[in-house]
């Protein structure tokens, strides 16, 4: 199906595979940059991930400015604080090493610098940022989930309001994404599964929501094929290099897909649950996905049938009559989630994570104000969301 009108952009250069990290200096020099601020989190510094990147860069860039005090889930305060560090140290570019929390914080910093603003609050909005001052921006993802290295979205929370805010702008796209197995092979099985489910939700929602288009479909389908083949392998064998690089690619592809086709109700509720209860994003995605698929079934049955093929292969697909494939797809995803639950303790109910029963109403109230709800194929009211939350609880 071709929409009456659509737009698509992905301007991120992709460096994937062997010795990818060693190419970072070359990429930054293309922009005449020599003094990046290196952003990461305390965990990644502790386990040596940051050092691997700094060693790979060697003496080709000045890597003396390192900031690792980034908490899970980016916030306004941290973003504003890092901008000052950047200016005080005369940095001229940004390297972000981390999962979605670090990457989105870095995107916030990039936005402040390019727009010459001091407080990120001034930049709230959608598609309003003009081309600003250049601040070359390289992202090295260490989880395979958010795809944030290739999206025009940053999710940054405003602690005063207890909400996660979305910033949408092409100005947020990094200049390069560097995928290297050395970055993700330390990821524990539970986070591998959780972030992998985030990537799956990106691809699946991009493929089924109202903004889908032929180009985003191509990316979403490639992502789902890789996830179907490699996610469980990466969970089972953390050092499986092929599975790791495949998942890094899947996450990036899914990011490109949803950057151009938006995510839907799973994310609307998931963002709200993150804001209210601080449940990790991927866990929320995993728990909510099957329930939201059931809610969307009246409009998405055929597309979910396609997803069955991409995720679980031709044999499973051919074994079911056409009218049963959509439902079978949900069933198969449920089974996969139960395997993850047994193998590594990925929660399957909200109550088993950080969500309390009294959180459900505030989550529903926030979810209907999340932009992602607009493109969901089935309209959802606060009552609908509450129903879904109760089932998932």
């Amino acid at each position, binding site marked *: 199906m071709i*929409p009456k009108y659509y737009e698509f952009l992905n301007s991120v250069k992709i460096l994937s595979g062997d010795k990818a990290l060693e190419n970072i200096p070359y990429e930054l020099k293309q922009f005449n940059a020599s003094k990046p601020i290196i952003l990461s989190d305390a965990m990644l510094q502790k386990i040596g991930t940051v050092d691997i990147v700094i060693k790979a860069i060697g003496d080709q860039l000045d890597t003396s400015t390192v900031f690792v005090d980034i908490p899970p889930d980016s916030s306004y305060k941290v973003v504003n604080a890092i901008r000052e560090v950047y200016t005080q140290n005369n940095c001229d570019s940004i390297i972000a090493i981390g999962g979605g929390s670090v990457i989105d914080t870095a995107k916030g910093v990039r936005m402040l610098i390019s727009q010459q603003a001091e407080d990120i609050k001034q930049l709230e909005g959608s598609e309003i940022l003009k081309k600003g001052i250049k601040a070359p921006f390289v992202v090295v993802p260490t989880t395979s989930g958010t795809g944030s290295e290739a999206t025009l979205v940053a999710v940054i929370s405003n602690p005063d309001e207890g909400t996660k805010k979305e910033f949408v702008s092409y100005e947020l796209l990094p200049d390069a994404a560097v995928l290297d197995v050395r970055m993700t092979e330390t990821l524990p099985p539970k986070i591998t599964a959780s972030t992998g489910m985030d990537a799956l939700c990106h691809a699946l929602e991009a493929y089924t929501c109202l903004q889908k288009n032929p180009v985003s479909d191509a990316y979403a389908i490639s992502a789902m094929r890789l996830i179907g083949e490699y996610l469980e392998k990466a969970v089972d064998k953390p050092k499986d290099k092929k599975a790791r690089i495949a998942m890094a690619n899947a996450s990036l592809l899914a990011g490109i897909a949803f950057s151009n086709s938006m995510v839907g109700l799973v994310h609307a509720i998931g963002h709200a649950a993150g804001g209210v209860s601080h449940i990790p994003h991927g866990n929320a995605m995993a728990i909510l996905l099957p329930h939201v698929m059931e809610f969307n079934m009246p409009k998405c049955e055929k597309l979910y049938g396609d997803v069955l093929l991409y995720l679980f292969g031709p044999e499973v697909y051919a074994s079911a009559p056409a009218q049963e494939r959509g439902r079978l797809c949900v069933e198969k995803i449920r089974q996969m989630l139960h395997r993850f639950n047994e193998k590594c303790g990925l929660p399957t109910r909200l109550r088993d994570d950080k969500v309390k029963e009294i959180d459900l109403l505030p989550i529903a109230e926030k979810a209907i*104000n999340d932009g992602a709800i607009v493109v969901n194929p089935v309209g959802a009211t606060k009552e609908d969301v509450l129903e879904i939350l109760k089932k998932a609880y």
Partner: protein
Amino acid sequence: MKDNKKFKRAIARFVLFLLGRGLKTAYKLDNEVREEFKAFPDNTFIRMNIAPYGPALAFSASGDRLCVYGGKKAKEVKPFIEIEFKNIDGALQVLLARIGIAEAYCQHRMLVYGDLYKTLGIIRIMNKVENYLFPGFIAKKLLVKRPEKEVSSLRFYLKVLTNI
């Protein structure tokens, strides 16, 4: 060519005028709409603008009245949230009910200045007004889910036309 766009702007001005009346009416007759407006600080304006030359519509709730500005006055307010169409042709797609707001958003037809979370309330308000103003078969095509009507469209229309 230039005149053609002028004509389009005249149409847009007329539809925005009706929409303004629709908003006022909905604010009076529909409890849910009034509830939605509570999310915005008192006396702050929400503006819909069409780049680059307008027209624009600005509105602000205070107490039991919704204050609506068109024309030059609408351009002068400093809005709390602004939804801006990139051009007149994209705006008319929406104003002439060819596409709904969700579809316009999918098509990147507009930009939003301000808190995106609060924008969703505006979208729900607009959907409600469209649901009153447009005949059923059009509303069904435009809206992903049709909201409930608290009063009949007939009563709504009488009020829009008479503006009392």
